[in-house]
């Protein structure tokens, strides 16, 4: 009899803990709201932020031992080198020596990170000082979970402010609809100068079949057709798959030739007058679909692409002398070549610039300046001033950029030549590859950082041809549709409309390309999307775009 009573008591106890916890959470919200009121009096907005003169700080930032907690996703490249951010990696050890601040990373594997942190944020208790958010900061800011940092930057972060002055687009991507800044993101667009997201093909097949590198979209069709019929792998069987892809989105890059921006901008773009257009229902879309259907009917496209092929199988085709062309980042191709070197020494995948379309369109969407991952300071942070200084140093100062963002420790992983850091052989000649070697020291992980062009250029120093192609591609770059933080109402309305439209659109695009839906029905497709309320979604995007342009 004693035991059931004991159990009952423990249930009651557990219940009171749970309920008590909730009560405490509510109290926290109120107190943080109060805090908001007292610090936000000046009503400083993002725009006037640039006029402020922050005070400089001296290193070390703190005299007393200080531990900062930072929840983020594990860097898989560090894992590949049998390291983890749960340990203090060399770059952060050095950072600690300089700043006096010890960082305790709370890391989770990337595929589980969002689930884990979402639960912690929903509970809203015992949050780390800095958190990598699972999505846009606006939602979390509204609940008071993360604190605004624009004033902190204005007062204490000279380097971040400099970054904002030099590159306003970085700041614009961070300004919330209420005009405040709640988060920082890694600045990564330097990589698109060296490693562009385009397409590539087997150059040796081209040579074997006496073909030229395709310049226009029609050339592409001819080349792929020749790959199919000309037996370029020479095994006597027509087993070549001219264009390999994991899914149908690989074809979106050919829409560039029709002046459509489906890759980085996801079909949202602006015309000359600054009016936002939903390109999925644009008449040019019909022409692109017709062309893709032509490719599909001619059996030039990977048949596995309509059923979301897994990456291993796709790679097997690429390096198995089966695939002839693909959409990928340029630096993917030398990696494939290295894996083929043993069995097929003549094989040569090479990146090429996108083709010209029927009306002379030739372009590439440039990557967004920042990663769409936000790092914010939470309401549980005891000393935001110290934390913002630390962020300022590690993220935006020249030394910090070099140390944790890119090159690591002088004398160990880099040396200075002519005022420019150069990787040592520890990185460049590492058996693990430059990326993993870099990660093993704690650089370039999941935290705010600025990717330096020198860093990425040196990492890919072996691939002169790809670097040259990337440089060639830069002349075709057009900006992507800016990523603007949406207000919660905007998100709710937008998601409500777009879930249905996206479902319908994805389904219909696939059907048009497969020819299961005759292209004559394109007008019906447009009407259906209009009937689903696309106008309202366009209005939301327009408001966001206008907000962006006004800043």
């Amino acid at each position, binding site marked *: 009899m004693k035991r059931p009573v004991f159990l009952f008591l423990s249930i009651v106890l557990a219940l009171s803990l749970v309920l008590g916890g909730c009560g405490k959470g*509510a109290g926290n919200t109120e107190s943080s709201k109060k805090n908001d009121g007292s610090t936000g009096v000046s009503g400083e907005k993002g725009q006037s932020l640039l006029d402020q003169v922050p005070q400089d700080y001296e290193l070390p930032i703190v005299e007393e031992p200080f531990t900062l907690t930072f929840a983020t996703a594990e860097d898989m490249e560090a894992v590949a080198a049998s390291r983890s951010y749960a340990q203090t990696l060399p770059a952060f050890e050095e950072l600690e020596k300089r700043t006096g601040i010890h960082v305790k990373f709370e890391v989770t594997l990337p595929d589980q990170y969002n689930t884990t942190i979402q639960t912690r944020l929903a509970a809203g208790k015992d949050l780390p000082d800095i958190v990598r958010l699972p999505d846009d900061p606006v939602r979390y800011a509204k609940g008071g979970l993360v604190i605004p940092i624009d004033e902190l930057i204005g007062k204490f972060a000279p380097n971040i402010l400099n970054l904002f002055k030099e590159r306003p687009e970085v700041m614009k991507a961070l300004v919330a609809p209420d005009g405040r800044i709640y988060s920082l993101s890694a600045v990564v667009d330097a990589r698109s100068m060296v490693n562009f997201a385009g397409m590539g093909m087997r150059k040796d097949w081209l040579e074997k079949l006496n073909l030229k590198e395709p310049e226009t979209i029609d050339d592409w069709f001819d080349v792929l057709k020749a790959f199919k019929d000309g037996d370029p792998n020479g095994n006597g069987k027509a087993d070549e798959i001219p264009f390999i892809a994991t899914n149908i989105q690989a074809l979106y890059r050919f829409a560039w030739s029709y002046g459509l921006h489906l890759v980085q901008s996801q079909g949202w773009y602006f015309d000359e007058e600054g009016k936002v257009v939903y390109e999925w229902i644009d008449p040019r879309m019909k022409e692109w679909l017709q062309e893709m259907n032509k490719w599909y009917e001619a059996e030039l496209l990977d048949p596995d692409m*309509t*059923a979301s092929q897994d990456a291993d199988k796709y790679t097997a085709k690429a390096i198995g002398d089966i695939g002839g062309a693909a959409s990928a980042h340029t630096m993917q191709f030398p990696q494939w070549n290295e894996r083929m070197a043993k069995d097929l020494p003549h094989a040569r995948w090479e990146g090429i610039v996108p083709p010209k379309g029927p009306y002379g369109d030739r372009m590439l969407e440039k990557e967004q300046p920042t990663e769409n991952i936000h790092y914010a300071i939470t309401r549980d942070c005891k000393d935001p001033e110290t934390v913002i200084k630390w962020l300022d140093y590690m993220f935006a100062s020249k030394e910090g950029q070099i140390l944790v963002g890119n090159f690591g420790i002088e004398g160990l992983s880099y040396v200075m030549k002519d005022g420019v850091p150069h990787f040592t052989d520890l990185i460049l000649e590492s058996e693990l590859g430059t990326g993993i070697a870099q990660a093993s020291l704690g650089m370039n992980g999941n935290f705010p950082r600025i990717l330096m062009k020198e860093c990425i250029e040196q990492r890919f120093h072996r691939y002169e041809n790809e670097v040259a192609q990337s440089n060639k591609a830069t002349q075709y770059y057009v900006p992507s549709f800016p990523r603007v933080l949406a207000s919660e109402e905007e998100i709710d309305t937008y998601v409500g409309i777009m879930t249905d439209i996206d479902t319908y659109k994805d389904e219909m695009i696939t059907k048009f390309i497969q020819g299961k839906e005759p292209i004559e029905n394109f007008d019906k497709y447009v009407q259906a999307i209009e009937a689903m309320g696309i106008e309202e979604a366009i209005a939301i995007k327009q408001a966001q775009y206008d907000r962006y342009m006004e800043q």
Partner: protein
Amino acid sequence: MNRRSPLQRLNKLKLDNFKRNIKRDRYLLVLVAPVIIYFFVFSYIPMYGAIIAFKDFSPGDTILNSKWVGLKWFKDFFRSIYFGRLITNTFLLSALNLLFNFPIPIIFALLLNEVRRERLKRAVQTISYLPHFISLVVVVGIMSNFLSPTDGIINNFLVRIGMEPINFMGEPAWFRPLYIASGVWQNFGWNSIIYMAALTSIDPNLYEAARIDGCNRWKEILYITLPGIMPTAIMLLILALGNLMNVGFEKIILMYSPATYSVADVISTYVYRRGILGAQYSFGSAVGLFNSLINFILLLTVNRISRRYTQIGLW
């Protein structure tokens, strides 16, 4: 003692009885306690969170603090042009699944029961329930490899005998058969265990008596074995019907693509795309609540029907 009224005495008697029962069953009560605690903590306490279906919840708000919005999310869901298709797909996939997944384990258990060689029986049983332990990701991976139109063995075979390769995983018509067949393959052995257990509880004397009365093996099955496992079967059927609107969504997420949305998109995958990827937790809960309501009504109805016609029911 004497001064107590009869009612008081009766109450005292009841209380004594209660105490005695508890004392007698104390170990059983301890045994069942973890289960009760489990359901209390993980099923009953979280129920209060269902109110966010009527609220506009965002992380950082507490559940109690967020704003009431009434039936907004329900209306949103009903207004979706895919509402009809989602309901149909969910219902069809689930019903077809039940249609095959329910009788096959019973038939398998009956067949296995007739096997007289004990070692063969054990071996077959073990092999048949092994697939149950394979992760869904792996099962779907195996499927897409075997069925690939470029180098899958099934299609290689089809091509060799002079047929056109079929894009199984990208063809809407093939989605349901594949989903159900792979489910049967994975679970029929495992699901038959409970029937095997029910079979062993049938009194062997009944079979002996039947044989004396001149029954053959077929009639034994018909008149003794089947009625013997009927209560178990009906119980499981009622429970399964109560879950009719819950389709295992992990497997669909792994299997589907825009090419097969038309038959594969079910309520849970739609909620996943909108509620989780779009971070609309309130919307997700509203649809979940709606789903549970249908399941609950189904469960009540089926239970009532079953009680009326077979006298077997959950309560």
